[in-house]
């Protein structure tokens, strides 16, 4: 069986280490769209409605919706029902803030990084079948894509 591993540099938004199966999803508002108790996407019109993000590496180009999403994400992290790491294309303070506050309150670090077009395309091609590791410290970040 062929296995391949590729590495890309990324930019740290929130430091931490996390890995898991990729979950590539359309923009989601955690407030009104995510159940922090069960880890499930609940927005009826979302293409990934019903899917769990718990323990996955969430790959989402941009966020959308209410700033209350920060609270819902922090609550999901507290409950152990949050993504293991977050990869985005654009800076987003609402998602980052949920992770920053959870890091300060509960000492649970869910890293958030942004990636360039090359890394983004590679993740898109690998899709939900790959396993991604995110290693982000305050100066540099790296993502490792493992294809089974």
């Amino acid at each position, binding site marked *: 069986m062929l296995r391949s591993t590729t590495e890309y540099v990324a930019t740290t938004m929130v430091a931490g280490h996390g890995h898991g199966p990729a979950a590539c999803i359309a923009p989601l508002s955690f407030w009104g769209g995510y159940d922090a108790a069960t880890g499930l996407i609940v927005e009826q019109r979302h293409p990934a409605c019903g899917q769990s993000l718990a323990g996955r590496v969430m790959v989402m180009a941009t966020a959308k919706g209410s700033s*209350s999403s920060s609270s819902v994400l922090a*609550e999901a992290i507290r409950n152990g029902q949050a993504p293991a790491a977050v990869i985005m294309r654009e800076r987003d*303070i609402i998602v980052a803030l949920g992770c920053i*506050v959870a890091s300060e*309150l509960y000492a649970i670090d869910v890293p958030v990084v942004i990636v360039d077009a090359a890394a983004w395309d590679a993740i898109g091609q690998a899709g939900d079948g790959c396993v991604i590791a995110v290693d982000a410290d305050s100066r540099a970040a790296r993502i490792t894509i493992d294809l089974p």
Partner: protein
Amino acid sequence: MIALSPADSAMRDGDHGEAAALAMRVLIRSAAVMGAPQLIDVSSAHIDGCLYHGQASLDFVDRLVAGQGRVVIPTTLNVGSIDLIHPELFRGDDALRTNGRRLMEAHLALGCESTFTCAPYQLAHRPVLGQQIAWAESNAIVFANSVLGARTNRYGDFLDLCAALTGRAPHCGLHVTENRYATVRIDVSGIAVGQAGRDILYAALGMILGARAGSDIAAIVGLPSDTTEDELKALGASAASSGAVGLFHAVGITPEAPTLEAACGGRAPRTTWQVTPRDLDAVRRTLNTAQAGDPLAAVSVGTPHFSLDEFAALEALLGDESTPLRTDFYVNTSRYILWELEQAGRASALAQAGVQIVTDTCTYITPIMKQTRGLVMTNSGKWAHYAPANIGVEVAYGSLRECVRSAVLGEVWFDAAINH
């Protein structure tokens, strides 16, 4: 890297206590995400964190209270989960009742004012042109930026409170003059603004603005010069519901837009959109799911919180009716406006007419309404946008006049003077 002032560094290192240090750490980490080069002073904060979203909401505020946190600038509070003036109206479970109340009280322990309103710009003291502030609550943000000309980014949970405890905010985005100019022009001169249904016309314009502009800044040309603050409030609240709008300019009306050129910073807008009567009808059809004659469960208005002028309009409409309201009729407002109505003897007359005033919270975010099965009518674009998902209602969308008439009839009534 963010350039910290000596005072910022001292606060981060704990010179002002554990709570201020936590707040400064969150601010600095957030400023890095936002790409801000430094922090700036802010002189007013509005906090959206007193609506209960789970244990993490309480844990954050409890940690600040335990660390001897106090706000260092005038700080108002947005709506909570409970109407503390009329607690008997709450119909949710005991856990939400207890935690919702605790969260509101913990914010008061930090020195926040007990305003509990989403319309802090209707309070006695409000920010002025050019003032740097840190406000949360999407409609308050867009009003402060657009109508008052104060300067705030779109703050939300946690960061608003960190700004209040430190008096600092990341210097970027809408705090910076260069980023406040319009890049798109929206021409509404093709819309006939008559007297009937003006409230929902502005709300519909806002829905269109948000959907088309997203987070871009628009300059609206062609609004009538007698446009009121309440109408701009409806426009902004809708725009912040359908899009990420933090600032718009209304040429000839709002303070940073004496002319189109001024609103655009002397540059040509990137694009121009026309809004047509057909666009407005499309919004109304999207928000409204009712037919004339359908039975009505309730009416809810006051999202954002009703102003004194809006109460006067409601009283006039109620005065035109010869029979009492047949359905529940909720008006969301602030406790300060309720107290003014009480002092003037107007509150009891409204209660007698069948109007239930709700303060400190809002009917679309917490269980208050007795009837949520069936149609609820509103003139609020924001309420119509969020309530179906939040509390499971179906929405009849109409002007304040249509809301009152429908509540008298007990069924949805649409005004022939407004094109439906």
